[in-house]
């Protein structure tokens, strides 16, 4: 008899305890996060195609490709390529490409653009950017570049007219050169 009473009391207590939440309001929880970030200043350089030049491969990145196509002293040239000079010794072809340097968090208003050849040039080749001859060491191309806009640059490729093996470049094969650029905030 005593046991029955005890069991009934336990059951009543259990119903009371577990049944109450069913009638209670929907539970809510709140919290706060103290977010913090450090705005790291910096600059980035990307290459863009210029309307007056050849279309770049991987435009909009910092590792683009530029193909003059087939060039010759007298023959037709690709769209975006012009022949700016022709002498008995050499001819020069030109195209235009854009460099955009993006900055954030800097007080700098301009940048200096430098360029250098990554390796020794193929025989019979020489490069200029905006009239500045490129070498295997960094050379200033522009000292007052404006941020966040495409800045066009002339890329001149001068080719010896000499025959292959006589000081002239190899003919009929694609010759590749990598030009490294560096933009430094002024």
């Amino acid at each position: 008899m005593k046991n029955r009473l005890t069991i009934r009391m336990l059951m009543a207590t259990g119903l009371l305890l577990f049944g109450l939440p069913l009638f209670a309001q929907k539970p809510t929880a709140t919290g706060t996060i103290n977010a913090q970030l450090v705005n790291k200043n910096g600059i980035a350089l990307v290459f863009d195609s210029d309307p007056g030049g050849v279309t770049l491969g991987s435009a909009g990145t910092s590792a683009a490709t530029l193909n003059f196509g087939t060039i010759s002293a007298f023959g037709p040239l690709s769209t975006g390529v012009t022949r700016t000079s022709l002498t008995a010794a050499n001819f020069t072809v030109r195209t235009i490409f854009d460099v955009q340097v993006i900055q954030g968090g800097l007080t700098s208003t301009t940048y200096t653009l430098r360029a250098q050849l990554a390796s020794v040039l193929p025989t019979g080749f020489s490069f200029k950017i905006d009239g500045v001859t490129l070498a295997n060491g960094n050379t200033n191309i522009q000292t007052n570049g404006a941020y966040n806009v495409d800045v066009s640059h002339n890329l001149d490729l001068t080719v010896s007219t000499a025959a292959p093996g006589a000081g002239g470049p190899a003919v009929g094969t694609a010759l590749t050169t990598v030009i490294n650029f560096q933009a430094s905030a002024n």
Partner: protein
Amino acid sequence: MRKLLVIFAAAVMITSLAAAQTATGNLTVTATVAGSINLVFNNDANGVQLTSGDGTNAASLNFGTVSAFGTLPTGVSRPTPTATTFTVSTPVDVQVNKTNSASANYTLVAQLTTADATNTWAVNGSAFTNASAGTATATGAYGSKVPVALAITIPFTTADSTVISNVVNFTATAN
């Protein structure tokens, strides 16, 4: 000592913050060089002066008024006429330049643009028509003016004041 350390640490931080910001990129540039040759016409000192296009590859040459027995314009020569025709000739210089090529010389041929059923045309004695080319030289030297004799043989039956006009296409091919 502690002050010195603090100053040193501050200096290091300032230096770090003041370091110039740089960004880099690389542009891979490719070009394929092709050998090429170019042909231009030039006045020859002993020939008829070009009416236009001296130094270009599209020139005009006017023999002027020619006849079997009459006086000829300066620069025009006339071998002894045959019984039925006479020939007038003038030299014109052709210069072919080469680049990025190991070719030693070139072959120069000429061909009429339109048929001429009446007259006979020749370069350096080699007859040509609109259907077949005449060879001016098979061993042309690059980079120098090479005189080419352009001749027209005209029948006596040609009416007075007849204008003879045609376009002669010259083609130089690297050997």
